[in-house]
């Protein structure tokens, strides 16, 4: 004990030194003075504790000035800094032994504010004193309340658990019972649940009626031993034990704050009982997540395997516990309950048991079909709040697992043909984007057909939503490929694993189908919506993924966007679309170049079709001709207009209309640039910029405006050092 105090002492002086060194003359004197007083106070505190340790039984309280002074001393320290573990032990022993009668006992208990931890053995000793029976009942209650308050600060609980039976015996004392139940609740382990205890509690229940504290303790017993007791918690029952008003709470928080400790959460220990969000009775409750319960296993005693000592998942409360018991966790009785907690999802990620996943899928599939497919009278609309919650939770789980559940996939195939495209749109599209790769022979019928119908008859926002969903789907497929492609190869060499049925070419076919499908949707959609910039943006999002399939995801496949996507993007009025298109072309170029070089290196690498390359070259030529060389409608396939038609349009110098200066997306930048370069000039002549020097500056200027896509496009596809003609030829050779 003395050591501990000197420790505090030296701490203080150390602090004092620091402050002395950092502060100037007369203040340091003041500090030193303060320090001295503090030391005196500490000395008297040590004396006080010594007094309470040594005081003899039967010493009178009234008129005992020594006692009064010492107790005041202790209280002062307790309320300001809290008591050290040894001080707690001394004072608790003093109070519970009732050496000076019961009067001081309450007062002492009230000031037992621990500074850090509470030693376990002193609590056990106190429980022993409790059994002696000299203490009046309200003091007993106060003590148990105190234990509940500081429960989390008791350093270990093993000895306390060892006297579980003694503590349990107090449940028969009526006033003490609620608090004892709470304490037992905190101490209970599986081995403490016994038939005779269950009987005792049930007996009490029949005497006292349905008391929440009894019910909470019994429900915990049920968690550990469902074969012994059963009950159903009424929905109206308040969760948790009543957070009894106790004298320590605010003082303890104050002490802990002063000591810079984290405020103990132990004060508000509650039962994690199921909260019903909706008291309204629902006839159909298939969307309600089942509560997590452990399996009732009566075979346990006979079965050998039980000796492995499994831990039901419901008893796991923290990630650390989960890791510790990973190898012997028992799944709950209802797999659907796993979706309700994030901890359980962590475990689900590692579940290898087929039947467990099948159970989950049965439950989920049933919920889906009852809610959406069989409800008939638009049941989904009536319970939209619950349905929404359910779907969001499911999506959350799927996103966490980064994989869709099999039954939600099966459900979607059936549901897409019935869907109106607006019911829970974000959620359904979210589920859809989680669908795993579908064989190309089935993809059309299962997914594309119904989606096409919805797409062409729905609003712009649905179109955008669907494109986003398809982008996510593609991303998932590609990610899946890049993760598992390697493993699959390994598997083939290890054993003839049947799961590798989907060959690379099969997978490529599916991805290609998807890309072509989205290309088709985007083309027609852009035409229908008048090249709406929002739709264009979602389309470009998609192609930003498509252009990088080879380098980013290692899939030997490159698909160019159709002209119906390329031209609207290139001729868009927003600079950002042109810039993104330039970026996409730049990525295509890099992907194609690296694929080419690999092709040369290894025979195995995929062969890029001529078609793809010529498409790419064509697009690049168009872009370079228009933006750079001012040669709109010059040559080549694609958009061609007869000369006389162009003349008839009366557009002066029509071939220049889409260069970097005159392109409607860039014209405002050209004006700005012109104004900055030649601030005095009244007449704006943009063609001045075309001269080689200002052109270079202009391009630089555009780069500084944040058009990184354009910059990369220029750097990879137009080498500024070379005359434009040569670059073009080079490109065509690629």
């Amino acid at each position, binding site marked *: 004990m003395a050591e501990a105090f000197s420790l505090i002492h030296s701490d203080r002086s150390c602090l004092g030194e620091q402050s002395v060194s950092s502060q100037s003359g007369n203040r340091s004197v003041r500090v030193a003075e303060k320090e001295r007083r503090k030391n005196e106070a500490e000395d008297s505190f040590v004396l006080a504790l010594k007094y309470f340790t040594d005081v003899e039984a039967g010493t009178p309280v009234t008129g005992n000035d020594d006692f009064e002074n010492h107790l005041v001393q202790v209280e002062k320290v307790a309320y300001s800094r809290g008591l050290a573990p040894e001080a707690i032990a001394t004072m608790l022993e003093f109070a519970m032994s009732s050496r000076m009668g019961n009067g001081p006992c309450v007062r002492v208990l009230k000031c037992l504010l621990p500074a850090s931890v509470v030693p376990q053995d002193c609590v056990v000793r106190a429980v022993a004193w409790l059994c002696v029976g000299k203490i009046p009942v309200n003091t007993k209650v106060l003590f148990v309340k105190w234990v509940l308050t500081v429960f989390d600060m008791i350093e270990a609980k093993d000895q306390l658990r060892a006297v579980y039976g003694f503590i349990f015996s107090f449940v028969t004392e009526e006033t003490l019972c609620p608090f004892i139940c709470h304490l037992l609740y905190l101490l209970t382990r599986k081995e403490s649940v016994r*038939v005779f205890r*269950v009987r005792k509690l*049930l007996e009490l*229940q029949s005497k006292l009626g*349905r008391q929440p504290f*009894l*019910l909470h303790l019994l429900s915990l017993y049920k968690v550990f031993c469902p*074969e*012994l*007791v*059963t*009950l*159903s*918690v*009424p929905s109206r029952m308040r969760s948790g034990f009543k957070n009894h008003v106790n004298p320590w709470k605010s003082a303890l928080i104050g002490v802990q704050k002063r000591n810079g400790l984290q405020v103990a959460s132990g004060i508000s220990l509650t039962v994690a009982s199921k909260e019903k969000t909706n008291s309204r009775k629902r006839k159909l409750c*298939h969307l309600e997540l*089942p509560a997590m319960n452990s*399996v*009732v296993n*009566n*075979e346990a005693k006979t079965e050998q395997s039980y000796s492995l000592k499994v831990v039901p998942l419901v008893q796991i409360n923290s990630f650390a516990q989960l890791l510790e018991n990973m190898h012997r966790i028992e799944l709950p*009785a*209802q*797999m*659907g309950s796993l979706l309700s907690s994030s901890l359980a999802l962590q475990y689900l990620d590692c579940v*290898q048991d*087929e*039947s467990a*996943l*099948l*159970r989950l*899928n*049965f*439950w989920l599939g*049933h919920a889906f*079909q*009852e809610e959406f497919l*069989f409800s008939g009278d638009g049941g989904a609309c009536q319970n939209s709040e619950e349905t929404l919650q359910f779907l969001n939770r499911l999506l959350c789980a799927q996103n966490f*697992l980064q*994989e869709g*559940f*099999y*039954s939600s*996939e*099966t*459900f979607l*195939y*059936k549901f897409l043909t019935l869907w109106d495209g607006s019911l829970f749109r974000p959620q359904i599209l979210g589920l859809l984007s989680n669908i795993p*790769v*579908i*064989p190309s022979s089935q993809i059309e019928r*299962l997914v594309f057909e119904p989606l096409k119908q919805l797409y062409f008859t729905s609003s712009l926002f649905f179109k955008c939503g669907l494109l986003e969903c398809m982008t996510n789907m593609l991303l998932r497929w590609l990610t899946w490929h890049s993760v*598992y492609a390697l493993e699959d190869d390994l598997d083939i060499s290890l054993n003839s694993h*049947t*799961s*590798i*049925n*989907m060959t690379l070419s*099969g*997978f490529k076919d599916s991805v290609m189908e998807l890309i072509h499908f989205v290309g088709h949707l985007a083309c027609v959609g852009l035409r229908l919506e008048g090249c709406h910039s929002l739709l264009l943006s979602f389309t470009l999002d998609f192609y930003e993924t498509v252009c990088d399939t080879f380098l980013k995801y290692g899939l030997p496949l490159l698909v160019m966007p159709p002209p119906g996507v390329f031209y609207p993007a290139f001729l868009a009025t927003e600079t950002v679309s042109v810039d993104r298109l330039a970026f996409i072309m730049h990525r295509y170029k890099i992907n194609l170049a690296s694929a080419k070089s690999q092709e040369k290196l290894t025979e195995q690498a995929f062969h890029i079709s001529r078609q793809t390359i010529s498409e790419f070259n064509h697009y690049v030529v168009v872009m370079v001709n228009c933006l750079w060389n001012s040669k709109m409608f010059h040559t080549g396939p694609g958009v061609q207009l007869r000369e006389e038609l162009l003349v008839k349009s009366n557009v002066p110098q029509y071939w220049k209309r889409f260069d970097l200066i005159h392109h409607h997306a860039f014209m405002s930048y050209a004006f700005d640039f012109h104004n900055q370069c030649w601030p005095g000039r009244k007449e704006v002549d943009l063609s001045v910029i075309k001269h080689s020097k200002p052109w270079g500056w202009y391009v630089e200027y555009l780069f500084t405006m944040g058009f990184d896509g354009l910059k990369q496009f220029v750097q990879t596809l137009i080498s500024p050092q070379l005359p434009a003609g040569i670059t073009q030829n080079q490109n065509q050779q690629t």
Partner: protein
Amino acid sequence: MDRATTSAASTPHRSALVKRRSKSKSHRQSYRSCSGGAASRIGLTPALTARRLNTSRKAPKSLNITERVNAEHLALLVKTKWKLCYATPLYQFRHTMLKSYARQLSAFIVAEKQRGLAVEVEGAQNHFRASFSVLQGLAEADDPETILIQIHSKPLFSSSEEPQRCVWSGWLSCINGNLDYLHSLPQGFTCLPLFGSSGTEVLTTLVKSWCQKTFDCSFGPLEINYTSLQWFMALLTNCHTESNIQHLKMIWSIPVEPPLQVAFTVSPQDAWELWSSVRTATRDLADPGGCIDFEEVERFTQGLKSHFYRHFRLDLSAGSLKEVSTALGGASINGRVKISNSRYMITTLALLTECALLKMPI
């Protein structure tokens, strides 16, 4: 209650038939593999191979099951009108643990009846007593044995000597279940897709929720759709030569304002003659064991409809068939059936099992 038979029955183990994966590394793979031995992780999606109602089935053999099935049980099955539900496969159901299930269910019912009061499982509850027993003699081939659940109780104000009487009964059954489907389930699952109940709705809900909690299964209402009702009609009419159907009664509902219900009763002889006429000529009518095709069934219904049209100028195709009944049994669209003759029980239950299996989410 026959305890001896209870323990004798056992849950079929199909370990030999279930091919287990050596390992499964991704969710998708394991999800996939759940779906009935689909070999590939990505390949076959079982949704694509949807189960369908059989288009052809054997004509009901008049099976004398009175020798195979306990008379008391059979009497219960025959005299009661059952409300049907489908149930997804039960997990970890053991035919050997029925006694323990009975205890748990009794305690569960008592606990639910007095919410907020804990109940000891092992103790004697005298208010409600559940019992589980095996209905032996119904299952065919690889079907798991049918389970009969009964709940006994005493009326609230009754003397203590008065015996408890059965207030609720129900059964879980699978008769001639699709073998591919049954075999595709991994070990640990028992497929008893057809759930019939008779008694108060409250107890039905309690039994269902106890099953959900204990066997991780789900229940949903089982409607008997138009196709199945037509089958019902044809199969029953087909039995006429062996046991008189007395009458063939249909209830149609016509969507007009105000709604019109048509009760259409055909005399047994007329029905039989119509049925004989639509049977494919090549088949030997004397052999009732032959196959019946769905086309014949459709022709039969069509014949009945056109007969009605000729007399009343009302085309029944515009409405929907709600109910059919004969002296041998009846069924209605909302999933209520009555099997009045034990000889055709197996056939009827097989048809209903098929309907229930169609409802399986996976």
